């Protein structure tokens, strides 16, 4: 007994092996580091190989418009992944929400604001159903949402045929939606006045009649930036953010500490579905029609963007701002190749390699963070 007590007395608690945390290590702890590095790499690549017009204002907008639509999905997907779950039904949800939105406007003749509310509510309910099935059955979300990938896509096809009398495309949405402040929130470009002013002062390119070549920032880009900022703030600064990390990191430990894990996860599924509905509303209003292929394979692209942005596939780690950069990288690569001499079909090779690199890098970072050896 005596030697044990002596040992207790002697045990030194300061650990000389823990080094002072340097700036570099501090940076390494940020999940979005990989995405920022990737972005610099990709931009450098295109700067060296691509036509200069890619980096003009209109070139940047051409890249940002699709990147922003994907980005809205990717940020939601990233939050869900950090919370420890997947949603493979995002892409199908875009099509399904598009159908609901289009049918509410045309077939049921509802005003825009009611159609938006109906679409959002229904998407949230579908997302929550996804989440509840995952939680109650304890099946992997991969399988449950894979089922919904097909169910929602199929429902969209059937629904479109019913709504249009046999076609898979629902047209004439632009006609029933008048112009108004609400529409401008979801469609067209923002900051027109600013761009006109800039053009008037010769700060940006303009046509001979004085109209700027780029009339404004697409609203989807504004949504994208706003959602990225909000997502980052929620994740890093709020209670719910801490709960998302906890739910994904170790649901049992989180539950034992009083975190309402099931509610957090259900909420994240609903949020992801709402992000899909937002993208549906934006794209449907822009195109004035909706069809069965809308959002096709967006679930994979969103997950890829989230992973490039630093999310771990196992949950509990990642960032919203990382997904933001991930989506921009995706947009850069998918559109940027057309500005180079390379065949743009290299895109998928490029993308797959990026994904693989990102996953390897993320695993390396995770080991660094947790001090695993």
């Amino acid at each position, binding site marked *: 007994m005596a030697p044990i007590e002596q040992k207790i007395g002697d045990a030194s608690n300061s650990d000389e092996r823990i080094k002072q945390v340097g700036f570099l290590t501090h940076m390494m702890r940020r999940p979005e580091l990989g995405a920022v590095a990737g972005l610099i790499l990709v931009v450098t690549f295109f700067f060296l190989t691509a036509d200069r017009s890619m980096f003009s204002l209109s070139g940047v907008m051409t890249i940002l418009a699709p990147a922003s639509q994907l980005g809205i999905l990717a940020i939601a997907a990233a939050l869900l992944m950090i919370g420890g779950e997947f949603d493979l039904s995002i892409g199908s949800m875009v099509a399904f929400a598009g159908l609901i939105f289009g049918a509410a406007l045309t077939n049921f003749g509802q005003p825009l604001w009611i159609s938006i509310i109906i679409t959002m509510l229904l998407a949230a309910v579908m997302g929550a159903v996804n989440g509840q099935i995952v939680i109650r059955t304890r099946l992997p979300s991969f399988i449950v949402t894979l089922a919904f990938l097909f169910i929602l896509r199929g429902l969209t096809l059937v629904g479109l045929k019913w709504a249009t009398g046999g076609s898979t495309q629902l047209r004439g949405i632009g006609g029933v939606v008048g112009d108004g402040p609400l529409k401008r929130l979801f469609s067209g470009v923002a900051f027109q006045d600013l761009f006109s002013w800039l053009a008037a002062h010769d700060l940006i390119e303009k046509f001979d009649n004085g109209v700027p070549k780029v009339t404004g920032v697409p609203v989807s880009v504004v949504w994208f930036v706003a959602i990225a900022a909000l997502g980052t703030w929620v994740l890093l600064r709020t209670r719910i953010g801490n709960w998302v990390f*906890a739910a994904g990191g170790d649901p049992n*430990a989180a539950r034992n500490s009083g975190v309402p894990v099931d509610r957090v996860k259900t909420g994240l599924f609903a949020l992801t579905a709402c992000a899909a509905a937002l993208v549906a509303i934006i794209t449907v209003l822009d195109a004035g029609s909706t069809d069965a292929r809308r959002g096709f394979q967006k679930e994979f692209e969103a997950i890829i963007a989230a992973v490039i942005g630093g999310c771990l596939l196992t949950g509990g780690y990642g960032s919203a701002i990382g997904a933001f950069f991930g989506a921009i990288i995706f947009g850069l690569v998918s559109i940027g190749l057309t500005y180079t001499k390379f065949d743009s079909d290299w895109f998928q090779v490029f993308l797959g390699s990026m994904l693989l690199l990102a996953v390897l890098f993320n695993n390396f970072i995770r080991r660094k963070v947790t001090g695993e050896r």
Partner: protein
Amino acid sequence: MTDSHSETAPPVIEVKNIVKHYGSVIALSGVSMKVSQGEVLCLLGDNGAGKSTLIKTLSGVVRPSGGDFLVEGKPVAFTSPRDALDAGIATVYQDPAMIPLMSITRNFFMGREPVKGIPPFRRVDFKYCSEVTHEEMHKIGIDIHDPNQAVGTLSGGERQCVAIARAVYFGAKVLILDEPTSALGVAQTSMVLKYIHQVQQKGLGVIFITHNVRHAFAVGNRFTVLNRGKTLGTFDKSEISLEELQNLMAGGKELQVISHELGGTI
């Protein structure tokens, strides 16, 4: 070690003839024990002795089928772990509720984050959290430079200590430690044992569950031995030796028989 609790104050936790049935299985058939402030009670017993069921009862996970359960002299009936926590009974399990990828600060305040600001701008006061975490870690003697480092960088013993510190910080009166040392090496174990001693000095009651009689003897004031759902006895440290305790815990006779069968390797 001195018994610092006064004789007049009621024990923080006292159970009398607690019974728990799972269908036809009798997990506890009349267990009695008590723990006072500033006292480490070691709960010893072999597998199947009823230690886990007793802990689950004390921490509100299961409800006893019969018997008395008193907290500070008043009878209680917990319906959830939250009730036990509110009554000041905190349980730290062998695998502490810590998430390796999250920072120490985020782990420390997980589920109990202090918030500031008005909704919808309500946010966690991370500056305060980090200060508190740093301070609490300093008190234990874990020298961290940055409370924002991931819990994964801490050793198993340090994680146990953080989990205990968290329970103490959030106002626990009694700590139930469920085999906190069973997965740890020697240095790590001594670190945890030292911290248990420190917690006891603060005046908290500690229920220390372990398989290891040596660990129990190092910090315990009293020892309650369970066997087959019953209390075999409670002993003050002055009343019993390490060897006697070891034999009692293993059910003496049985161990000898097994030892004989294995050719004397135990």
